[in-house]
């Protein structure tokens, strides 16, 4: 059981990183970025290819993956600079689809739908599977802690205030002298960098990447994590990611409790329960479990 919980904590940490990245872009910047599966894929493929073809060590590959994802994110932000809300959501979702199609069809680079396997990671093969999972979860959660501290600091800094001002009203922010486009692009790039880092760690941990790993499911889970945890709050993003893993994996044990249901019924019930949970949460606590806290400054009379 412990082995299983440790391996789940790795996935919880990876979802946590993705949720943190999305939180900077969407939570603080107000830009609905549903392209996160694409940026996650860019990070994973870049890291895997750097390790397999260029024979870089994982840390170097992770840095490369992070930078590449940041670049792609910046480009996406420039292209979509004029879009907002639903329109931005659709275009970014399309971006993720394009990346998945590229991964499936550019066989010379990505090995197509067969994917890239045997991606090296320090300790794999030398450590027992259990100890490898312990090492992986330590590395992933170290990244989660560092990234959340960094992003929290950023959100408290003048940069974060300006970003929130743009989220609330772009025109007002522009009138106040903030360079809206520069803020948007830099936030998008930084958020994408975090997603790219998550991709690199994912590739190293599972040792395998394929286009199927980056379908819309991962986007849905991360959006769910962020909404449940509290949009705009870094601690909320991480808590939401843990909650999503507890919810999706905990419901696996339903089958044992309901032996009369068929496997399909249990599977459908599991997915239904996740949907019901989200509905209840949005009905009774629309701001999430750990909502964003605004510092208010009281003026002296």
């Amino acid at each position: 059981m412990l082995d299983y919980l440790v391996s789940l904590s790795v996935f919880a940490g990876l979802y946590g990183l993705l949720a943190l990245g999305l939180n900077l872009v969407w939570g603080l910047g107000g830009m609905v970025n549903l392209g996160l599966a694409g940026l996650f894929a860019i990070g994973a493929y870049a890291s895997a290819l750097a390790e397999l073809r260029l024979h870089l060590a994982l840390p170097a590959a992770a840095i490369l993956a992070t930078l590449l994802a940041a670049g792609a994110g910046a480009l996406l932000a420039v292209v979509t600079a004029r879009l907002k809300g639903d329109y931005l959501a659709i275009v970014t979702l399309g971006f993720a689809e394009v990346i998945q199609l590229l991964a499936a069809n550019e066989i010379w680079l990505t090995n197509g739908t067969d994917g890239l396997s045997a991606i090296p990671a320090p300790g794999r093969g030398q450590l027992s599977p259990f100890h490898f999972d312990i090492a992986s979860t330590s590395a992933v959660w170290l990244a989660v802690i560092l990234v959340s501290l960094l992003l929290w600091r950023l959100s408290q800094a003048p940069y974060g205030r300006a970003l929130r001002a743009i989220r609330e009203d772009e025109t007002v922010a522009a009138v106040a002298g903030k360079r809206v486009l520069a803020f948007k692009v830099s936030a998008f790039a930084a958020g994408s960098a975090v997603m790219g880092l998550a991709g690199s760690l994912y590739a190293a941990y599972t040792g395998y990447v394929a286009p199927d790993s980056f379908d819309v499911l991962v986007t849905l889970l991360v959006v769910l994590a962020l909404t449940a945890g509290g949009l705009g709050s870094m601690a909320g993003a991480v808590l939401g990611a843990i909650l999503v893993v507890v919810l999706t994996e905990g419901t696996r044990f339903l089958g044992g409790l309901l032996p009369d249901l068929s496997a399909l019924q249990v599977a459908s019930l599991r997915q239904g329960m996740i949907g019901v949970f989200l509905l209840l949460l949005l009905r009774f606590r629309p701001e999430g479990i750990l909502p964003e806290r605004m510092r208010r400054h009281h003026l002296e009379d």
Partner: protein
Amino acid sequence: MTARISRRTALAGSLALPFLARTGEAAASIPLGAINPLTGAGGAYGPSMAKVAKALVERINRTGGVIGRPIALDVEDDQTNPTVGVEAAHKLIDVEKVVAIVGTWASAVTTAVAPLCWDSHTMLFCVSGADSITRLPHHGYIIRTQPNTYLQSGRAAEFLLRHGCKRVFGLSAQTPFAVDSWNRLKAVLGQGGAEGVGDIIYDAKQTSFRSEIDRALAAKPDTLFLNSYAPDLEILLRESYQAGFAGKRFTFAYAATDAVLKALPAPVTNGLWSFAPSPDVASPAYKAVQAILGISDPDPYSCQIYDHVALVALAIGKAGVASGVAIHDNVRRISQGPGQHVSDPVEGLRLLAEGKKINYDGASGPCHFTPSGDILSCKFLFQVAENRHNKTLSIS
């Protein structure tokens, strides 16, 4: 010497008792895992696969189990997604301590789950098609019941040779298996005195293939090998007919659908050959799958998972030990080689208990495996289009 039981030992002993009882209880049933695409892209197949696996496990348990122990089957959904598949495999291996995982469907899920299996000495039985799977460094822990590209293309080429085709041109949609497929076909044609006169890989999303067809016909083929999907096959058939090609055409059964035959005039599609790997429809095991699902034409994957469960049970019955290593070491000793042919796993278990040798022939085919885990042969269905319907030529 007298045995003295101090209060401390008594306390330690009584504290340990519940754990001993627990291990005794856990040893009673043999944990077996299934990872099936119950939802997602494979959702059309997963539920019936799970049903077949459960029904066979229940039947084995009703008739006394394996080496006197019942099998406890845990079916997990992979949502046709590799990440979810890995999470499911962690649960099965780390929590349930399964001896084997059966029925992984999508190639990406199988490839993602495979390292967890071979690291933990858990046998993995899959129905995925990608050739790359059995090339993984799996140390014998993967068994695949789905014919790979090599086997399929070889059998296609033999069919063409039997029907007197001499000059074959390949037109293939861009897929991971397009190149492997053509190379194998060309090699077998060459051995049989025929010739692969050229090939083109095209983008299946094109709306016209006139230039491809012109290039193909310039090579003067007597047969077109159309490695297509349904939408592009329809265009290729129409445009090659319009271009005056009167030779033979060969394709996959999943492309030559009823919809394609209905969409084109009969003269365009008449004589179109198509083929698909087929379960062994004459086998009693196939009839058992029909009975479980209550349908006359169960899909190949449901037939294959029936064989997965049977192979696991029989390998454990042979070894007398329930572990992944025991299955790994014994699966070929009950599926191939000398021994009495059986198609009913329960009968096979009885024969094994009597110390007899058996050779299991399943619903999907003879279940003979290469050292790398691929099947050596299986039945293929060949059909021909006549008046907008597919007519079975042979199942061989």
